């Protein structure tokens, strides 16, 4: 990942989400995480079944951004969550949101990317990424 790409990604966190931004997101996606992609709440809910998520599973949300939809999936399914994103501000937002949702004890957010995953092999059961490859 180039420094330019990373800078562009970090720029998305330049402004903390204010009510107008969250209201816009709620109407477009059904979420209020500060997301700006295209994964709706209904699409996120489908992933609980698609990935067979449950309390005995560990989910990796790669390119987790501000925590959507990984945290939502963890709340819905009871799974453990590892969120990985190259932008520190996104990781901090994810950590904060996990605490608000009461899942901090089973949620870990770390800085990293798909080329250099900060995880040992065979440590997660399922992987999700939304609007990350493009």
């Amino acid at each position, binding site marked *: 990942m180039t420094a330019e790409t990373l800078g562009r990604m970090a720029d998305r966190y330049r402004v903390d989400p204010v009510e107008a931004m969250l209201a816009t997101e709620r109407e477009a996606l059904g979420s209020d995480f500060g997301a700006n992609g295209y994964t709706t709440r209904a699409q996120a809910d489908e992933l609980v079944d698609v990935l067979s998520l449950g309390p005995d599973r560990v989910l990796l949300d790669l390119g987790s951004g501000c925590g959507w939809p990984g945290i939502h999936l963890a709340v819905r399914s009871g799974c453990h969550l590892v969120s990985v994103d190259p932008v520190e501000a996104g990781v901090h937002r994810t950590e904060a949101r996990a605490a608000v949702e009461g899942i901090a004890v089973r949620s870990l957010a770390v800085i990293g990317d798909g080329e250099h995953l900060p995880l040992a092999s065979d440590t997660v059961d399922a992987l999700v990424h939304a609007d990350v*490859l493009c």
Partner: protein
Amino acid sequence: MSFLVIEAADGLTESGRRRAARTGPDAVLTRSTYPALLRSAGFGHVEFEDRTAEYRATQQAWIDATDRHSAGLREALGAGDFAERRRARAASLAAIDDGVLRRRRYVAMEPSGRSPDGRA
């Protein structure tokens, strides 16, 4: 593994691919297809569903909501950033309508049922 991704449509002309690059997300163009990439990475079972209709509806919903909350968004983002985001979403919506951009949901498993990224 499951992921949602915006792609350039199949069979685009060079100008169509340039438009996809202009109106889609940063890495919308790939040298190979996602099914081929997944298989080369060891995923034996690959399924996908076209989710372009929902992508269009969501992009339209972003635009409509952006217009409803324009005053607060302009204040938070600044007039220039607000206008650029609104313009980019409208350009993307037009590209979806013209068959340039699409969105798919992929589900991929290793032949054994194990994901290369995990235990299951």
